[in-house]
């Protein structure tokens, strides 16, 4: 009955493969770099036709293919929803929302790779996309199927409010992955192994830091927009634009946390290490907002 479930399954395995390939890529790059001249810029000495290049190329293509299948899965789910209840938003329950978040994370990562060409980031960001997809597939079957929408959700607002909010989560997830990467690279530098070990293909600390900041600068306006759209929806459905429902309050909390981060960065002390730790903390808060609120706190958003 649910053809999309098969495609979601395929997506899961493709992302797993992509993650493995990206890790393979950074491990293989280490070997290629060992004979490199000390002080030579990282990432440019890999011999032509080396394992690393092959793995890197494969990783990118498998990720891209995974994205396509993920998109097809969401599209098929949209069609199935249309058959069942006449609405098509393929992010109408927890499972679909997470599958959409992983789609957004992977799409965001591929854009990043296209623009900056730093494959090592894939090991971290694609992993988060994979974890989102994996966690979705761990949900019980009854959460994975497309049930008709409850009356409160049956509105055109679901298309725009939910998708935009989820996209902001994806951006914050990328920032969190970059934060982890920063801390690892930093530790390697402290131990003096940044140039020779698997960290060789990692971009400079400054670059990781800046990319993390950029990811948050994408997520921050999106979350503001998504939350305000939610308020507009609430004004039609719940009898008021703000009810301090746990979900909307947590969206505000997350937004304030990143707002504080953006302001703190105006001062130099909040770049680098502290920012990386904060990005990871922020991601944990997003995960709570996305998951914890639905499963631990009761409220108007308890639809899943």
């Amino acid at each position, binding site marked *: 009955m649910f053809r999309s479930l098969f495609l979601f399954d395929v997506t899961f395995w493709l992302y797993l493969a992509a993650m493995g390939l990206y890790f393979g890529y950074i491990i293989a790059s280490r070997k290629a770099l060992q004979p490199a001249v000390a002080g030579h810029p990282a990432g440019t000495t890999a011999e032509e036709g080396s394992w690393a290049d092959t793995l890197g190329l494969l990783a990118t293509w498998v990720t891209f293919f995974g994205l396509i299948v993920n998109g097809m899965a969401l599209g098929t789910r949209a069609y199935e929803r249309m058959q069942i209840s006449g609405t098509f938003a393929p992010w109408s329950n927890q499972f679909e929302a997470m599958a959409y978040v992983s789609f957004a994370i992977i799409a965001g990562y591929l854009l990043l790779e296209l623009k900056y060409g730093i494959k090592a980031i894939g090991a971290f960001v694609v992993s988060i996309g994979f974890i989102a997809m994996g966690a979705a597939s761990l949900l019980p079957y009854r959460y994975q199927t497309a049930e008709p929408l*409850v009356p409160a959700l049956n509105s055109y607002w679901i298309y725009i409010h939910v998708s935009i909010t989820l996209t902001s989560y994806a951006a914050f997830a990328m920032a969190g992955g970059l934060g982890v990467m920063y801390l690892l690279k930093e530790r390697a530098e402290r131990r003096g192994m940044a140039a020779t070990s698997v960290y060789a293909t990692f971009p400079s600390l400054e670059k990781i830091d800046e990319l993390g900041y950029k990811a948050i*600068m994408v997520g921050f306006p999106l979350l503001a927009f998504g939350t*305000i759209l939610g308020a507009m929806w609430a*004004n039609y459905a719940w009898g008021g634009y703000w009810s301090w429902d746990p979900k909307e309050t947590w969206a505000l909390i997350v937004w304030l946390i990143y707002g*504080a981060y953006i302001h703190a960065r105006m001062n130099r002390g909040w770049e680098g290490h502290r920012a990386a730790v904060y990005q990871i903390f922020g991601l944990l808060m997003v995960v709570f907002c996305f998951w914890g*609120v639905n499963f631990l706190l009761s409220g108007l958003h308890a639809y899943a």
Partner: protein
Amino acid sequence: MNRLTVRAAHLYDEMFFQFQTTYEMDAITKDTEAAKPFTFKEFGDALLEFFSSLKLAIFLMITLAILSTVGTVIQQGERPEVYIKEYGESAYWWFVKLGFIDIYHTWYFSTILVLLCINSLTCFNQRFPAIWRSIRQDKVNVTAQFIQNLKRSATVDLAAERGTVTEDIALAFAERGYRVLVNKGDAETTLYATKGIMGRIAAHVAHLSVTVIVIGGILGNVIGFRDFGVCLEGETYHIPQGNFDLHVDKFWIDYYDNGAVKSYNSTLTVIENGESKLTKTITVNDPLVYKGIWFYQSSYGDSWDRVEKARVVVRDKTTDKVVGEAILDWKKEAVLKDLGLKLLLTDFVADFGFDAKDRRVYSKTVEHENPAIKLAITEREQTLTAPWIFYNYPDLFDIQGSKYKFELTGYLAKKFTGLQIAKDPGVLLVWIGSTLLVVGVTLSAVIYHRRVWAKVVPGRQGVTVYVGGTAYKGQIDFDREFDRFTERLKARGNYTV
């Protein structure tokens, strides 16, 4: 103080870096405070500086986040029993003291919100004028030393004429969307290129929007209202806030094929001065609006003080055999001819309670825990008492003077539609503020302010170019742009970036 020396070069450019150097400026103010007697103006400046500081902004946002978290962990606005059961008596006492059971309406929560407004407004007041001025009058003439101290800088010797080099640099930046100003001196030429000041302005628009939203919220709280009405089909209700009446024509539920609820619907008619003004079927996502008052489909349920129908079984007292059955309509007399009975269903309670003081029967809760009907019995033209008949406890009372026993074996509760009735005159301001917020935050996140200075002076080969620049945000993209520019400048012949 270390940071101060490191950043001395940047302080030189105070007009733009004012925002980033708040802490350093704070430190300076503090030093002078002790030395000199305090003037009123200095005090005012220090106060403004404090209220507009980044530190305060961060502190307020984090505090607001923490307080909001408390409000989501501890359930808000519940009955005392709920808290006592979960957290214990003493914890509940503290919750009440600290306002944790309605944290979003406590004085300290409101204070933080107001402080956040003051913070963003003073920030606007302190920093915006400089940004605004810089649109018109930017610092073009700078020294080579200044350029070399910028975050990114390069020095390039070129065998070319000053005029062509200047023109090429100007063109390169103009093509990238920069606004280029050239100051041609006798011996040297200074170029200034800038882009994306809009991003800085947008950030301040976002700051102002916070206050707009908060004012909208306060307005709604002060002159708006939010009520909940339990309304029955066929009844008319007066809405005093709008001085009109609301008639509930119909309430019904639509289902999907699999039995899940598709929508709750109420058809409502607005009646003003005896005239029907407006009829609309509202659903959960589609309220009725009349004279600024919104009617939302909020809930529904079984009425606790009336039924549509009730089924009463009549038994003979002596034989205990069923001798008759009647389906009674609400407040309509039913006649059982062969038993010589007339029955009238006069009242219903869902959860029987008795107020001994007022000698009044009422429903303790809205749940159908202990339903009972009041039955007026006329037997052989003789009016007997009207006893309460309990659904859960048949045969509780003996009805004197009657041959029969009456049992309530079933009833069809009247459905009510729960309407949320609200008026919020602040909502328009909230939407205006929200729009400004989204536009401001988006633009300031997307548009990065960048500035580049270049100085072309006579050099060994022909000219020496000092070029340097800073980005307010988005350093990584600026770095790429700057590197590409300097590489091509060095390669000569092709200045296009």
